[in-house]
């Protein structure tokens, strides 16, 4: 099994903890990749190698409502738990933190009723999967 090394970037945007991870295949699990925050504003990052069942503690991030620290548990690529270790006494931050599942992007064909996609123009419609569905009726 390919071992992925998730990099956790915790950034505080409106007091909602946000994370992403960037698998770097082949890197040894003990090597911490440099963290890159998605934006420079009010962001702070930490990184750590992770293996199945690994618990990653985020750095404590000072916010104007108080310090925030998030702990993320991975099973391989998958986030299995997200827990607030520290949170300001503020109702917004006590909301459940969403769990995200990481997957490889697949290209598939399937029997479907309709297609969702970014706004398709009338010009592009003729070539689209939705047009094929509409013709089939």
């Amino acid at each position, binding site marked *: 099994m390919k071992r992925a090394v998730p990099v956790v970037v915790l950034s505080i945007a409106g007091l909602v903890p946000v994370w992403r991870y960037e698998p770097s295949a082949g890197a040894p699990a003990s090597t911490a990749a440099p963290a890159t925050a998605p934006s420079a504003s009010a962001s702070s990052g930490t990184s750590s190698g992770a293996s199945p069942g690994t618990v990653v503690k985020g750095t404590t991030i000072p916010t104007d409502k108080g310090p925030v620290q998030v702990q993320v548990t991975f099973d391989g690529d998958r986030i299995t738990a997200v827990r607030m270790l520290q949170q300001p006494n503020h109702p917004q931050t006590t909301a459940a933190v969403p769990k995200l599942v990481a997957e490889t992007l697949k*290209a598939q064909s399937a029997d479907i009723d309709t297609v969702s996609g970014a706004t398709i123009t009338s010009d592009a419609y003729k070539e689209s999967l939705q047009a094929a569905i509409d013709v089939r009726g």
Partner: protein
Amino acid sequence: MHRVEHVMGFPVSLRVDDEDVPEQAADAVFAWLREVDARFSPYRPDSEVCRYDRGELQRHELSDDLVEVLDLCEHYRRATGGAFDARLPGRGLDPNAVVKGWSVQRAADLLRAAGARRFVLNAGGDVVAAGGPWRVGVRHPEHADKLCTVLELTDGAVATSARYERGDHIVDGRTGRPATGLLSLTVVASSLTEADSVATAAFAMGAEGIGWAASLPGCEVFAVDAGGQVLRTEGFPVAREDPAPG
């Protein structure tokens, strides 16, 4: 009943499976969408949006519908720290990102009021479905003829924001530059008003928009980041591999 018409520059496909729903119900859907185009298009100088933008209408003179749309725009501007903005510098007022989902959801409500129970309405890639299960494919961001996932929906809405078709057309209002952090982001919610607004707003935010959208109650998210990695919420309703016959 299965109809396709082109309104606001995009195709609108309507399928209604209830035999007892008259064609007039579909006529009303398309008439409403044409009305929305006339009233809210930023490209029609005589639209209410353009007249308001030029100062010919005051806020208290606006229709309840436009007030509702502008309130939604303001809500998402604040919620995204300005990444989503209907008033970008150097451009006219453009509430299209909210108008589309809001108006198509209203169209679906018209169908329900006319007695439709099992239907799917697809407006340029934004979907409202009722009385499912329906299988909704999400277009692959890099292959127009492929899907990146298939979800199953009984009653609800699906919207996708992505870069493929119109290039970099969603602007991050915080920087004034095209949003490039994601290839595609899909939101499932109970209404298209919410699904479409959240998908556009999260796409404008970039990578952090994934967590932002996922944290909203009732929103399920499937995102493809700029590196081709999929991140989705656990509750995203991925369809089973093999659909049941029929």
